[in-house]
């Protein structure tokens, strides 16, 4: 039974990686938000499964927190923002999408290379998760670099955060609860700030969803 659950966790981690790739090459903002919500849902299932296997009660709490925040609240907030500001347009990528995809593949190989010696040391559940989590973080990083608009950049940030949490669930038995609560508060405040920002940038300029790169100096 446990072996089956372990394999299931590995499978979920793989699905999470697949969704990271989907985020990386998706052009439409609203679809990106849905992919993010799905990825978060996968994280919720992984965390609860890990909680059930290890008997660590606080993992259920962590899963519940993730569900409320990242599956429901943040996606709803971002969809509202899109509708209010009429932002749903195609994304202007800095690098062509096929090239991005190729770079993403290389990052996955790199991540697995870095993580392998460490993952073997893991006393916790699924040792394959560390490589996948690191790959997820690196792909989020790549997305941050190759996208120039605000919404994809924030989603990249959030996808990276999902990667870190996947690592925390798979490699350790989740972070201590105080820390998770603190992180949740920080993320929520960050999203609220994003909302304020976008509204202001939108009202200040004719072209919405402003870029972070304009006027980028040294």
């Amino acid at each position, binding site marked *: 039974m446990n072996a089956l659950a372990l394999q299931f966790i590995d499978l979920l981690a793989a699905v999470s990686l697949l969704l990271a790739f989907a985020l990386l090459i998706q052009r439409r903002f609203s679809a990106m938000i849905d992919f993010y919500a799905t990825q978060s849902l996968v994280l919720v299932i992984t965390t609860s499964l890990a909680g059930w296997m290890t008997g660590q009660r606080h993992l259920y709490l962590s899963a519940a927190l993730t569900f409320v925040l990242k599956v429901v609240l943040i996606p709803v907030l971002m969809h509202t923002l899109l509708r209010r500001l009429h932002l749903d347009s195609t994304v202007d990528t800095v690098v062509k999408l096929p090239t991005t995809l190729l770079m993403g593949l290389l990052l996955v190989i790199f991540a697995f290379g870095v993580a392998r010696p460490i993952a073997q040391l893991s006393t916790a559940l699924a040792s394959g998760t560390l490589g996948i989590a690191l790959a997820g973080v690196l792909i989020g990083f790549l997305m941050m670099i190759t996208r120039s608009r605000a919404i994809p950049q924030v989603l990249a940030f959030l996808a990276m955060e999902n990667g870190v949490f996947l690592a925390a669930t798979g490699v350790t038995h989740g972070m201590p609860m*105080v820390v998770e609560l603190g*992180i949740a508060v920080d993320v929520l405040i960050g999203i609220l700030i994003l909302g304020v920002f976008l509204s202001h940038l939108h009202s200040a300029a004719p072209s919405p969803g402003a870029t972070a790169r304009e006027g980028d100096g040294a």
Partner: protein
Amino acid sequence: MNATASTALFLLACVLLAPLIAAVILGFIGDRPGARLFNVAASTVTAGAALLLAAHIIKHGPVLALSEAFHLDALSALVLAITTFVTLTTSLHSVDYMHTECARGRFSRAQQRIYHAMFQFIAFALGLALSANNMGILWVAMEGATLATVLIVSLDRSRPALQAAWKFFVLCGVGILQALFGTVLLYMAAERVIGADEGALLWTHLAAIRTRLDPQIITLAFALLFVGYGTKMGLVPFHGWLPDAHAEGPTPVTAVLSGLLLGVALHAILRCKILADGALQTPVAGQLMIGFGLLSVLLAALLLARQQDLRKLLAWSSVEHMGILAIAFGLGGAAATLAGLMHLLGHALVKSGLYFSAAQAVQWSGTGQISGIRGLLGARPTLAWSLLLGTIAILGLPPFSLFPSEFMTISILLQRMPWAAAALLVALVIAFASITLQVRNMTLGEAQVEAAASPGPGHHRVGPLKRIDAIVGAAPALVHLAIALLLGLALPAWAENWLRQAVAVVAG
């Protein structure tokens, strides 16, 4: 609980709760005229409690409070004392600054509330980052300070300000996520030794078992933590946010950013380095710091001459000094660590003082452009002198305290890595020349005629009143310089004792 422990707990509560409560109150009344003075009062309570707490720690040893949630030793007490002290002088400077800016109608009432509330919130977050024993809480506090700073940098809602804040948000966000990953790995390493419990992320527990942590995990963890907190510290190549955020934010906050946030980030890196050094038994962590430090100093030196904005010039000088600090602490050992701590103190004092002067120069001339600020010595002699003396101090000339610290760093580097010392010296000479040239033009250049067109309030006064105004306005900067001068001339016995204890924490 005995008397000393409860005194420490009370003082710690003051340090953390005073700014937090003040932040909430100022969120409601921050737009009233009295709010600026309330801001000063809250900062005074915090600074006073922090200094008493520091004295307590020097006398009675490290404080571990509230079931090990908070931990302060001589090192964090040192950074905490300088942080709260500079916050206090910054709040004094902020009174004058906000008076002028509000008289010009730059900030709405809501923006004044945000400004004051976030000012105190940053003070709270920095205090928490320094006193938290839990590495996860340290991360949360650093992220909290970042978010508050983002809000305050974007305060005037102009397009450049919003873009600078956005860049800050994204870059520091990405950086700090690396630090979170590093924290997860740290937890993993600790879990292998002491098992999964809440104590596995407490720094005191980690430090106790640091020689038993797995070297492979710790190598990756330190690399990630270094990149994460290094972004906060403004080390090249993670420095992209720094010059813009410094040029666009309200200047008092820039002073806090430059003098304090960078120092608190460095403190976080030092904590991680202590663990890494224990686990690895090789100087990898130090070498990483020296490498990135050198890169920062070199790039900053090359770019200093090209800066046209006064605050960006100072920001790049901060990058340079963070590089020197990374080198000093990277070298390790008692002497280099002492030099690093001295430099940290000196830089926090002098750079924030320079930002105070810069803020007044910018308000006087109505422009942040260096080419627009001319003939300061003729028009505002007190201001010009504080700017000149601050420049002398930041360039590492005697008799200010940055001279002995830089000198010690270079001479130790010369013994260990002569080639690196040569590169550092060349960079310092270039930086010296660029800054001197720029400041000379501002202070000595042809007097500016159009400056009279946009005088700030308070400049209509004549005679002695004007003189007093000028001295009061320059007081925070001059106080900072005076302390840096004292530290440079002769270290008092108690300060030396304090520094020695802090060195013992870092260098073992």
